[in-house]
Structure formats: structure tokens, C-alpha cells
């Protein structure tokens, strides 16, 4: 145990923040060393001086000013949140209008059915389409095809 070790622990010693064994070491050294003992006393004076610093009156209006400031901060916070909400309303309205407009435009310009043009489908062959139509109207026709063309090879 030396002076340097003790002085680095004087604050913790007077604050009772040392382990019992460390506190005992400091206590023994202080009992033997006048210089460290003086430093300990003066550190204690400073600590007590700070502890005894007087409270200063805040003044009668300070509490009201604080409350007003906190309430204002609360209102500002609400306004900010409201501001975001209010900003979302026109954005949502624009989005809805755009959606409705798009839907209406799609209805107006409904495209004509496009024939696929695949070979073998009725749409690809007008004659086959007509036959299918006739068969649907007269299922008993047996698929008779009336043709104005003469026999092949004539």
C-alpha cells in the first residue's frame, strides 16, 4: 500500500464504494500517512460543500411555464401526426380517381374479340364457322353443306 494507490481510492473510500478489504487497506494507510489523511479530509470538505449547496427557488411562474412548454410540445406532436394524416387524404383521393378513370377507360375501349387464327378452328375458316352456325340452328342437318361450287374437276 502506497500514497498513490490510496489517493486514487480516497473518493471511493469516503463514498463507501470500496470493497471491505480495499477500504481496510486505505483506512490503515490513512492512519499512518498525514499527507494522505489531509487529502482525504479536504476531499470530504469538497464533497460536503457540494452536498450542502443551497437550493435556489425556481420562481412562482416556472412550473406554469414548464407545463405550458410541455403542452405545446404535445400539441405540436399531434399537429405533426395530423399533418401526415391530412397529407394522406388528398394522396388517397388522387389514387382513387386515377383508378376509377383507368377502369372507365378500359370499359370504353373494350377490344373486339380477336380471332386466334389457328388452323382448324372455326374462327380460322369462315366456311367451317358457317357450318358450325348452321348445325347449331339445325342439329338434324347432319352437317349437309350447300355449296355453289361444282364438282371438283369439272
Amino acid at each position, binding site marked *: 500500500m502506497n500514497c498513490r494507490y490510496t489517493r486514487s481510492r480516497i473518493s471511493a473510500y469516503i463514498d463507501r464504494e470500496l470493497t471491505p478489504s480495499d477500504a481496510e487497506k486505505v483506512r490503515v494507510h490513512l492512519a499512518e500517512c498525514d499527507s494522505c489523511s489531509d487529502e482525504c479530509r479536504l476531499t470530504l470538505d469538497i464533497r460536503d460543500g457540494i452536498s450542502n449547496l443551497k437550493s*435556489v427557488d425556481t420562481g412562482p411562474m416556472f412550473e406554469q411555464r414548464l407545463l405550458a412548454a410541455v403542452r405545446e410540445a404535445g400539441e405540436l406532436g399531434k399537429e405533426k401526426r395530423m399533418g401526415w394524416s391530412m397529407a394522406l387524404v388528398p394522396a388517397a383521393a388522387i389514387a382513387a380517381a386515377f383508378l376509377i378513370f383507368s377502369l372507365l377507360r378500359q370499359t370504353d375501349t373494350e377490344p373486339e374479340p380477336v380471332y386466334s387464327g389457328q388452323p382448324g378452328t372455326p374462327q380460322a375458316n369462315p366456311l367451317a364457322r358457317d357450318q358450325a352456325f348452321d348445325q347449331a340452328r339445325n342439329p338434324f342437318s347432319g352437317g349437309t353443306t350447300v355449296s355453289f361450287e361444282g364438282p371438283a374437276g369439272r
Partner: protein
Amino acid sequence: MRTVSAIDQHRERSGQSKQETFERLLRDSYSQAFHLALRLSGRRSDAEDLVQESYIRAFRFFHRYDPSLPFTNWLYRIMTNAHIDEVRRSGKLRVSSLDEVHPETGSTWDVPDESWSAEKLLLSEEFEAELQEGLKKMTPEFRIAVLLADLEGMSYEEVAEIMRTSIGTVRSRIHRGRKQLRTFLVDARPDKYKAEML
């Protein structure tokens, strides 16, 4: 999934709104908070600003407060952070304006700080005034640690919790802070303190 903070649960039990709960805590704590703020900042106007800023920040983050712990400890954490922010902001201005060498005369600026004189606290005891001046000169982290321990009577563990650091660091800050204070007092008034302290 909605999470319910401890303060929400507390409010539901007590039947008070967030605003009412906070205002009750403010009324109970503002005098004590001002006492600490005054010793941290050294000026009444600065202390009032610091307290106001601290309560506004506390109100904004009130949902994070755990009511099972002392409100003042939570508030002091906010206040000490706000104080360090303020010191860093204003410290630059003060150093550049008063400690810079004058470009023409080569000497340092020697301008009396009238605002400080006007608002300086009228402490009744000379020692109190000197201590307050010494506190003002201390490194902010040391000053906070010393004031929380000595003025508020907190344990090193509580100080460490508020300053979000280790107990070892708190021990070092308090030790070095008191040493700074002692050195300041001796330098400022060697006739008075030299014989007593060194």
C-alpha cells in the same frame, strides 16, 4: 402485434391520461431537477432552458419510461445528455471567442462576460460561489458524475446507470472531478486554499 409499454399499463391501472400522468410527475420533480440543472449549468437562465428541454424530451419519449423505476433517475439521464449536448454546442463558441489569440495585438481576448456577471448566481456563501465556479470549469462528464453523487446522493451504481457507463468509469470520473475542483480552488484562491489543501 401491438406492444403495450409499461407506462401504458400503469396509466390503464391509474386511469390517468399520458398528459395527466406526466404533469403529475413534472410537478413532483421540477424543483429537484432545477436544483441539479442550476449546478450543472451555473446560470439561472441556462438551468431553466435545460430543465425545459429535458421535460420536453422526456414527454416525447414518455412511452419508454418504466414507472417501476424513479422518474428523476430517468429524467436525469435525459438532462445530463442534454447538458453535454449544450456544452458541446456552446463550448466551441466560447473557446473561439475568448481563448483565441488576437490577430493584431497577439494577446488573448480579455472581454468581460457581462451576461455572466448579470445573471451570476447570488450565492450567500463565498465558498458556494467558488465551488459553483469550479464546477463550471470542470469537464462535463466529471461534473455530472460528481453532482449526481454529491448533490443527489446517488450511489456509483445509480450514477453509472444514468450515465450509461461502468462503475469503474464513474469511480474514476468522481475522483478526477473532485481533483479538478480542488486544483481550481487552489489556483483561484491560493492564499485561502493553498495552505489548507496542499
